[in-house]
């Protein structure tokens, strides 16, 4: 069983948004900005790996779409934090995400051909599902700045689109 970035997010959600829940705290805007940016970077890195390794046009095209969209959204996020003079703040969730993603990339790097394609796309479906769920149930409701909230809401629509796109590619691979 892979320890996926999705597992980290799922644990984060299922455990009542630990570690914040224990202190009955919501993530702050600087933490939310950091989590959102980290989640985007993880998908860009996975996409870069897929562009390098996959020989399947649908998979490479999908990965390029992911790289392009997430880079555009992350650039928006950076522009916004600069404008708001907010410093994104590293936190336990970002660290858990980054750690799990590193392990997932190491697993993916060992796979080849159809096995790689399948593992990459399935993880993309699961990862976007979890990110969307985290945005919907925790990050968007917790955001206090309206511009940050609005960016997260647009991000949610984009990533819901990615989820459907990934499901479509997964279906085409079968």
């Amino acid at each position, binding site marked *: 069983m892979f320890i996926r970035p999705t597992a980290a997010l799922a644990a984060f959600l299922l455990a009542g948004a630990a570690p914040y829940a224990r202190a009955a705290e919501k993530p702050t805007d600087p933490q939310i900005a950091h989590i959102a940016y980290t989640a985007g970077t993880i998908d860009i890195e996975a996409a870069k790996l897929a562009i390098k390794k996959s020989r399947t046009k649908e998979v490479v095209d999908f990965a390029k779409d992911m790289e392009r969209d997430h880079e555009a959204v992350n650039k928006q996020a950076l522009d916004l934090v600069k404008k708001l003079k907010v410093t994104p703040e590293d936190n336990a969730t970002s660290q858990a995400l980054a750690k799990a993603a590193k392990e997932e990339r190491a697993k993916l790097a060992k796979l080849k051909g159809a096995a790689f394609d399948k593992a990459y796309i399935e993880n993309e479906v699961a990862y976007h599902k979890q990110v969307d769920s985290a945005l919907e149930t925790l990050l968007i409701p917790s955001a206090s700045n309206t511009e940050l909230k609005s960016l997260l809401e647009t991000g949610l629509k984009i990533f*819901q689109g990615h989820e459907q796109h990934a499901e479509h590619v997964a279906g085409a691979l079968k």
Partner: protein
Amino acid sequence: MRASLLPLLAALTLALVASPALAATIELTIDKLVFSPASVEAKVGDTIEWTNKDVIAHTATVKGGWEVTIPPKSKGRITLKQAGAVDYFCRFHPNMKGHLEVSP
């Protein structure tokens, strides 16, 4: 002078007779992953022009039919050649949907 205007007038008259309804450009926008208006009525020969206000690229894709790429902060257009009702979506974000009613 008068004589030289005649062929022009003739051509213009002919053009008007040949296409009783002048082709129009129908403008749509894409903002925050929404096609607006979501549904439009058009005629064969009309041009549909999408203005993409988002920072990411979109498409207007008809399954088994045409596809228009609409780059971020840019426009994409298509001239309608066939009558009928079509559903289109964004290939990158299939949750974006639109509809065209094209009359002959």
